[in-house]
């Protein structure tokens, strides 16, 4: 399945390998925590491991691989990284507000009530 097109020196291959496995591992830990944590607001924290550390490490591996392999700086990945790191907080915030809104509508005792308007 994987054909090696680019030839890399050993140090670059090791760096790519480390960052690749590290990023995938962080993403996996995030999803495992996401499955195990008991309440919604705790679960909200788990996927951010994948979207910050996981995305960062894997894109760094990709930058090293293509930059060293082709001999010129390849920084497409920064676009993806920038995009993910700006958009995921937006979705998470909106989801958290939606969840708060729904829990308050059902008068869930674990959720802090809205502060009375002054």
């Amino acid at each position, binding site marked *: 399945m*994987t054909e090696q097109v680019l030839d890399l020196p050993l140090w670059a291959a090791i760096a790519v390998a480390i960052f690749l496995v590290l990023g995938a591992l962080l993403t996996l830990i995030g999803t495992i925590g*996401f499955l195990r944590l008991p309440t919604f607001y705790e679960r909200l924290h788990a996927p951010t491991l994948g979207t910050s550390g996981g995305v960062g490490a894997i894109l760094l591996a990709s930058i090293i691989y293509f930059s060293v392999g082709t001999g010129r700086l390849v920084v497409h990945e920064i676009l993806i990284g920038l*995009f993910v790191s700006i958009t*995921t907080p937006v979705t998470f915030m*909106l989801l958290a507000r939606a969840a708060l809104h729904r829990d308050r509508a059902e008068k869930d005792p674990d959720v802090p009530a809205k502060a009375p308007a002054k």
Partner: protein
Amino acid sequence: MSAIILFTAVSIAQLLLAVAMLIASMRIFVGPRAQDRIISLDTLYISAMLLLVTFSIGTGRTVYFEAALVIGLLGFVATLALAKFLMRGEVIE
């Protein structure tokens, strides 16, 4: 030597990401509430995007980046729309 290292690392990373996607889709079934399912959808597409990037490292081709970017864009819009629907569509009637 470096080819073997890269091949192993790419295979391991793909396996880990595939397991991550599997776990995220388990949460879609388990729920328990709509917001959990939407967050697991978010996690699922992020993992899929990362899987595409590892594919591009495995094959040495940059065409997968555009695909990853498109997944990111569409996933963002989709989860945003779903979250907005939760705020306005279901609770207040």
